[in-house]
């Protein structure tokens, strides 16, 4: 990920001159701009699902479970028994953690996670 950092400033602000991840590119060009009476809209294979309204995801049970899992994970890291419990549900917890770090419905699409993961 190309982050342009101004030499003089501190590094608290993460700067990028241009979107590098697919999700950021979509943020800029999908449904943004002057709409003209289009003859037809082109479709991109595999990204149709991206237009799902993010609000649907916010209120879902799945989201609640992710939050609950995230908050319970906090203590796992602090307690002595962490090792055993992490082993027990390690696989799914690890996967969920990745998903939990991602915002919005857009990220439901396979392959869109890369830029987020790289920045971690």
């Amino acid at each position, binding site marked *: 990920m190309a982050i342009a950092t*101004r030499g003089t*400033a*501190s590094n*608290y*602000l*993460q*700067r*990028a*001159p*241009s*979107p590098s991840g*697919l999700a*950021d*590119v*979509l*943020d*800029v*060009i*999908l*449904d*943004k*701009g*002057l*709409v*003209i*009476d*289009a*003859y*037809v*809209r*082109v*479709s*991109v*294979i*595999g*990204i149709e699902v991206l237009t799902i309204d*993010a*609000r649907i*995801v*916010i*209120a879902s*049970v799945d*989201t*609640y*479970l*992710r*939050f*609950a*899992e*995230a*908050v*319970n994970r*906090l*203590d796992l890291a602090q307690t002595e028994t962490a090792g055993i419990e992490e082993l027990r549900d390690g696989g799914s917890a690890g996967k969920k953690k990745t998903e*939990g*770090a*991602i*915002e*919005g*419905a857009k990220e439901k699409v396979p392959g869109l996670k890369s830029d987020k993961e790289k920045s971690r």
Partner: protein
Amino acid sequence: MAASSATSAAVYVYGVVRGDELPAVAAEGVADAPVELLEHDGLAALVSKLPGRDFRVKRRDLQRHLQVLEDAFGEATIVPCPFGTVVVSEDAVRGMLLTERREELLAALARLEGKVQLNVKAVYDEEELLRELLRLHPELARLQASTKRLGDAGYYEQIRLGELIAAALSERRELDSQRLLRHLDERSEDTVIEPAADYVALKASFLVSRKQLRKFDDALERAAEAEQPALRIEVIGPLPPTAFAAAAAGG
């Protein structure tokens, strides 16, 4: 290619510039086609031809669309069109767009002149955020203890816990986003706020005058410093003003 076939083929439209501002666009267009300038009465549409009737394009075409906008934006004021805009023919671009919407386009070009878009995202550090929510809301801490005790049997307690976290987060997000917006609004001309989900506190596009760019960046830098470690602030840009084009055209 013969002129007759060119005028009957569907065209992909990237955006509109003033006719005299942009000599050419080097970037390759959607579906590997070269980008051309279709001029008419002082305005020019950036277009490329679409092959056949298959309007399914590839993922890399998303990047191409953006690249064309960025190239043009580097040299001219542009009114961008959304990705996937296809018009039936070159004649329709001249007629429907450059002629019929001429006044609208000229107004938009005037409003967007000398301005850039910055996409800002403020993201919570998950652990910092959750620990703080637990500190601030004792009932969350209580519920967390009981869900841990119940384990898998506490499915509904987990949902309840998650629901409360979501509510606390939404409250917190409201406060944080408003504070950030107050801080940034005075340095920008316009703002488009996007819905924020999960650990995103604020996701917004700012329209900033090039003359104010340094001040806006300083304001962001100060905010980023003041908000850490709870929030991480990212900025992408300067970008062509895609989020503001429709409003600038009065639409």
